[in-house]
């Protein structure tokens, strides 16, 4: 269904990746390990009805219905670069709500320092959660520091290209943190918990030496499996037309977010 959106302020100069590529090249291990699995196997996933719970160190814990959430905050369209830790990238026209606007509804307490996100756990609808092949322990969990969560760039996406978010892209509600690797963008969020301590994150639990809590895009900090110095641009046209471009620190969003990490050694806190 099409969404009523308003234009947002970011990324007007970028050319978005095609809808077909954005919806058929997904890492969403709840559906399967191959990038074509989410589009193929998400047919029986129900993203309605859906509620989002905000709890923990907040003055007003809330449970919000997804359609009510969309109706009260008119989603804005924002074109963001997306850089996967596997050294490929896309440009995605999201429709979403700044996370800060949603968190404020619950009135985070002064003691809150982190936000923990929990994804959906439904083995009967998510084939990847049924068999033992994912070595991620479900549900998928992610986290942000509160100042990262409140940064104006941080978005909860509810749509793509002006349409309701497809299941394979994390319906009905997914996190988008464009200066971090894609795996930080937890999909199909059910719960956000404000915390005083750093929450666990799924990939970090699985391989702490490969995936850090921060996961900021950084060409100077290599992953043990991939060089992060450059990236393949998905959908840039055929075999011989596929582009490789240099990766930028914070995925090019340094002006908006570099101050969050002032004085931190990004090689240690990767």
């Amino acid at each position, binding site marked *: 269904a099409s969404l009523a959106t308003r234009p947002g302020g970011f990324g007007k100069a970028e050319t978005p990746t095609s809808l077909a*590529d954005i919806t058929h*090249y997904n890492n969403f291990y709840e559906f399967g390990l191959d990038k074509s699995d989410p589009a193929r196997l998400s047919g029986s996933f129900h993203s309605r009805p859906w509620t989002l719970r905000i709890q923990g160190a907040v003055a007003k814990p809330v449970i919000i219905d997804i359609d009510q959430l969309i109706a009260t905050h008119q989603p804005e369209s924002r074109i963001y670069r997306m850089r996967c830790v596997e050294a490929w990238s896309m440009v995605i026209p999201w429709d979403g709500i700044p996370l800060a606007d949603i968190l404020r509804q619950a009135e985070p307490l002064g003691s809150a320092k982190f936000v923990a996100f929990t994804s959906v756990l439904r083995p009967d609808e998510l084939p990847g959660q049924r068999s033992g092949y994912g*070595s991620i322990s479900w549900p998928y969990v992610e986290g942000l520091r509160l100042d990262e969560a409140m940064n104006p760039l941080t978005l909860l996406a509810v749509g793509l290209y002006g349409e309701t978010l497809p299941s394979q892209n994390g319906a009905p509600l997914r996190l988008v943190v464009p200066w971090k690797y894609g795996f930080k963008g937890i999909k199909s969020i059910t719960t956000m918990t404000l915390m005083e301590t750093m929450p666990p994150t799924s990939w970090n639990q699985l391989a702490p030496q490969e995936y850090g809590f921060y996961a900021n895009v950084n060409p100077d900090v290599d992953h043990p*499996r991939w060089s992060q*110095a450059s990236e*393949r641009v998905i*959908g840039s046209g055929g*075999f011989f037309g*596929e582009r490789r471009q240099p990766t930028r620190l914070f995925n090019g969003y340094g002006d908006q977010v570099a101050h969050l990490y002032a004085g931190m050694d990004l090689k240690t806190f990767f």
Partner: protein
Amino acid sequence: MASSIRWTPPGVIILTLWIAGLVPAFRSFWLGADNELGPDPVRSFEHLLGLWAFRFLLASLAITPLRLVTGYSLIRYRRTLGLLAFVYALMHVATYIALDLQFDFAILWRDLTRRPFLVFGMIAFLCLIPLAATSSQFLIRKLGRNWRRLHRIVYVALVAASAHFLMAFKTWHPEALLYVLSGSILLIIRVGYKIRSQVRQTGAKM
């Protein structure tokens, strides 16, 4: 022996093997050039070539266990299968350097010095080079016993390629595990028969 195979000249079978063996590469290359290989054609092509290299490596390594277990020998086709494995590995590496890295040798150097996943892959490929280079009838005869010794490197190639295959995924991948398990079974059959024949020889001597 299956009579149909006996009646077909081996040369014809070998030629058919070569042509059929190269079909996956040509087909994907064609699709890729036409941008019909999905959102990430280079990576799809690269992976397909690597997968077929592993398949042909397994096929060539299956010839002896097949004879040991069933008595049925396809030994005259082993060289073709081994060479197909090498050709696919070569195309796999060439695609990685030319289409994926686009000749960025700085990244290539870092990949090969820092990333175990790619180090294992390169070891497997380097192992296959001397095997392919000494595959001619002339060199087999000339090298004699040494040829057999040299070609034991294929086991190093199998182990390195298995590590590379398993490490290419972020989590344990069932398909990769299945392939690696198949390779392990082929090795176990050989080792099993080797031990049995040694036990028999020792028994005969006593």
